[in-house]
């Protein structure tokens, strides 16, 4: 199993912490599913932050702070610096939003911010598109993980461009790759893992489900099944049938 900046994860599910019906349900979703990485963010202190932080600490998970909502390099870098101090981790999920409706990453600023942060000692998890050249540039900038989108954040559409994601997996065989965003169903998450991805990061699909705890558990089973299937070397699809029961020795009865 590949490591994420030297850290081996016990399972391939990274789970967001936003949008749950209540803190108790959020906590239960993590405990029951066993997700080992929690994404978190920073917002202006209003009094609620300390309680939330205590709960996350009690969950005993790896924390992956994000730079969600940042639109400029400067904003993202400052946010990352603040996150490093507050959460006491070098990990940063680098988001640089370029488009309001699709929340598509601004990959030009993403590469620049990734370089600045890497030079400053951060371990960057860039939320990127499925563009191979951008992936190459991010690796050159010092990233050791890539997180291409499956579909726009919160859309639940699954893997919009399987071809591109397959190409990315083939292009970067040794780089830990995470499908970040767009997952709606466990089948999407399993699909990502079957393609050979190393983890799946999702939030809305669980938090907005009618029963987030059950959905978190379903996602965990899906990523584990997909990972196991990939390791088991699946068969190729074919156009025509091929009998699975031996033909030779069949009794002559007609």
């Amino acid at each position, binding site marked *: 199993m590949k490591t994420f900046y030297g850290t081996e994860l016990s399972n391939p599910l990274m789970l967001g912490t936003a949008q749950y019906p209540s803190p108790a349900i959020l906590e239960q979703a993590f405990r029951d599913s066993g997700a080992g990485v929690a994404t978190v963010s920073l*917002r*202006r202190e209003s009094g609620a932050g300390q309680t939330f*932080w205590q709960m*996350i600490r009690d969950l005993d998970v790896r924390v992956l702070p994000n730079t969600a909502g940042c639109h400029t390099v400067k904003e993202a870098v400052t946010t990352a610096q603040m996150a490093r101090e507050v959460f006491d981790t070098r990990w940063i999920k680098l988001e640089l939003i370029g488009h309001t409706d699709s929340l598509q990453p601004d990959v030009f600023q993403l590469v620049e911010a990734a370089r600045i942060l890497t030079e400053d000692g951060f371990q960057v998890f860039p939320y990127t598109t499925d563009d191979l050249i951008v992936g190459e540039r991010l690796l050159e900038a010092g990233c050791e993980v890539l997180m291409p989108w499956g579909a726009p*954040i919160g859309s639940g559409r699954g893997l919009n461009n399987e071809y591109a994601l397959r190409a990315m997996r083939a292009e970067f065989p040794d780089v830990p790759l995470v499908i970040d965003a767009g997952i709606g169903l466990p089948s999407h998450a399993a699909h990502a893992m079957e393609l050979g991805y190393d983890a799946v990061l999702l939030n809305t699909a669980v938090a907005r489900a009618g029963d987030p705890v059950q959905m978190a558990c379903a996602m965990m089973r899906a990523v584990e099944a997909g990972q196991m299937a990939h390791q088991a070397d699946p068969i190729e699809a074919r156009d025509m049938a091929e009998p699975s029961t031996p033909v030779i020795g069949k009794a002559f009865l007609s």
Partner: protein
Amino acid sequence: MKIVLNGEPRDVRAATLSELLEECGFSGRVATAVNEEFVPSSLRIARKLAVGDRVEVVSPMQGG
């Protein structure tokens, strides 16, 4: 002294960033920035405030 704290205009007595946090009752895990520049906690005592400074105080929050 008039400053802007988390987007709101405020009139404060504090002369430094650390005094401001105390005056406004911030405690626990927070990070700070002044005029869009990160100020590490170790430098808050030395960070003098000036009229019109834009101070951001952030804390952990849910995120995806």
